[in-house]
């Protein structure tokens, strides 16, 4: 039964990775840049939920909404101030700027925390309704807790909604057009800047949701909460083929399962090495990822 329990845990973690990976993959597909600060937006989301609930005593649903709005605004602001001026700059410059933004977010939160003389925080666990599902009976029973159930449901709903958004709406069509060929899309009357802003907004809102679930998984957290899931979600996005939305979902879930299986059957402390090893293997043998398209370089 441990296998099944591990699988459920892996699926749950994988759904969180998928949520984060979606933000990465959409931004990469459209702006052709790796948003290193994406992981830190998760952290900001988790922190704002934490602050709203423990300090301001707001109801959970309001706290989540505030976190989503805050992260969306933050994502748009970052894009406007740090990434937009570098739109035509060499990729290396954009990448280093993104690392700078990631560090900035972490350290600003660290400074704020130091003012309150605390560095580690406990994520409130009573946000989600306390329900649990029991499968099987007796010794073989596995209990799925509320956080896991909600992660599944919310991720599934978001994925369906996002797929519909990308495929059915005008904005989604514009996003696909910009990711396909920015110049031509602009000639067709699509504002590339506005499309990129919307992409950042969606990605950041998803990061806030991921912050809620990830915070509920790790419970004890600090200003570096986002960096590991951020990197792993990028691994997931690469795994599924960066730029591909179904790829991000698939990659996230596979990566979550691999990580939990490695923790269970190899070693807890080596799980990260296994995850990163997988990334290197995938990139060595299939650099475009599982569902990625091959892009031919133009001279």
């Amino acid at each position, binding site marked *: 039964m441990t296998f099944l329990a591990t699988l459920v845990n892996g699926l749950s973690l994988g759904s969180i990775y998928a949520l984060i990976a979606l933000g990465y993959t959409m931004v990469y597909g459209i702006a052709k840049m790796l948003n290193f600060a994406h992981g830190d937006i998760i952290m900001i989301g988790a922190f704002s939920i934490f602050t709203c609930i423990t300090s301001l005593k707001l109801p959970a649903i309001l706290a989540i909404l505030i976190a989503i709005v805050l992260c969306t605004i933050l994502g748009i602001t970052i894009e406007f101030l740090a990434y937009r001026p570098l739109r035509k*700059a060499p990729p*290396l410059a954009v*990448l*280093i700027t993104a690392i*700078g933004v990631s*560090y900035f977010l972490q*350290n600003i939160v660290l400074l704020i925390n130091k003012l309150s003389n605390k560095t580690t925080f406990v994520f409130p666990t009573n946000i989600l309704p306390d329900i649990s599902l029991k499968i099987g009976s007796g010794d073989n029973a596995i209990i799925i807790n509320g956080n896991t159930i909600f992660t599944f449901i919310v991720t599934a709903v978001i994925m369906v909604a996002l797929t519909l958004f990308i495929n059915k709406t005008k904005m989604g069509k514009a996003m696909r057009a910009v990711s396909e060929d920015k110049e031509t899309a602009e000639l067709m009357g699509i504002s590339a800047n506005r499309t990129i802003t919307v992409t950042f907004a969606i990605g950041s809102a998803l990061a806030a949701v991921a912050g809620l679930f990830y915070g509920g998984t790790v419970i004890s957290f600090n200003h570096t909460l986002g960096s590991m899931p951020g*990197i792993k979600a990028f691994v997931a996005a690469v795994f599924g083929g960066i730029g591909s939305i179904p790829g991000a979902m698939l990659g996230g879930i596979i990566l979550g399962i691999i990580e939990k299986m490695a923790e269970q059957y190899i070693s807890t402390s080596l799980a*990260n090495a296994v995850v*990163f090893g997988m990334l290197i293997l995938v990139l060595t043998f299939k650099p475009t990822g599982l569902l990625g398209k091959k892009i031919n370089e133009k001279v």
Partner: protein
Amino acid sequence: MAKFKNIYNNCMNKITSSGVVTRKDLWTYAMLAVIFVAVLVSDSLGLLTRQLTSLLVPVCCYIILAVSLNLTVGFLGELALGHAGFLAIGAYTSTLFSIAVQDTITSVWVRFPLALIIGGVSAGIFGLIIGLPVLRLRGDYLAIVTLAFGEIIKTVATNITVDLSKTTTTSSGAEKVVEQGLFGSAGLKNAPQDSTFIVAFILVVITVAIISNLVNSKYGRAITAMRDNRIAAEACGINITYHKILTFVISAFFAGIAGVLYGHNYTIFKPSTFDYNMSIEILVIVVLGGMGSIRGSIIAAIVLRVLPELLREFSDYRMLAYSILLILLMLINSAPGLAGLRAKLSIKNAYLSIKNKVMKRKTAENGGETHE
């Protein structure tokens, strides 16, 4: 004035005519020599506090790290985020070697060079191992893979235990266990302290000499060509694969050398030190000093290592300042919209405009005569 300029130019031409050393490099060596003398003089005058003395070897380490990373980031133009991993490999393999042979090879002058070779070569081998799979990758993918490699090295080091503890008998006859070796997440313990400032400085000079000569060589021109236009470079017959791997190996080798210095200086260190943040810190040095400028890397390494020690009360703000610095530098240096601002800030332009003004004044003084 003109006479001095002539003499200077003649000397420079003679030295640089061999083609091995460029004028730029001579300035770098002169700067290193000045720093070396300044450190020795202020040390003998007792001006260096204990804090600063303890910083000497680490600063040398960071110079080597920054110069070697500059080869990959500045000259090859690929972002590598796993430099701390190579540092870790150099530090671990060499200190373990030193601990193991401590009793058989008692002379530091034999043991330390051997440790250097072992640390450098093993880091170089890892550079090769990383270089092979990332051949097909560029840009963001390469950055993330090097990051992943750094994390793997760190994670694996936390899971290895090499116990080389010895039991010694103290003068009173009681037996005492000296903990030596690598103890998983508790890290490496009690390596011999073989690094000194002089040795570290010599290594800095050797590193700078080798890397600046490489950059001036055919190899260096090949990698800068690859940076500026990969496809054109390939069309000119440059073997991209070979040069990329070679750069990785050289860069890793020197990071390993820095690791040997690091390990034999601190003697006790944990694997968690060599994390992603450390790689970023080295990257900040390279970016601040100027990508593709060896002298810049040296200056930035010194400033960014010594300044935080002097401004300890602001230590909370250090990383915040780094991050803002990174963003601003990138925006000012690379944003197409800020080209005008760049021209205003450029030292070269400022110098030229002052020179022009002086020339104009001179012509005015000479009564409007045209002056060459």
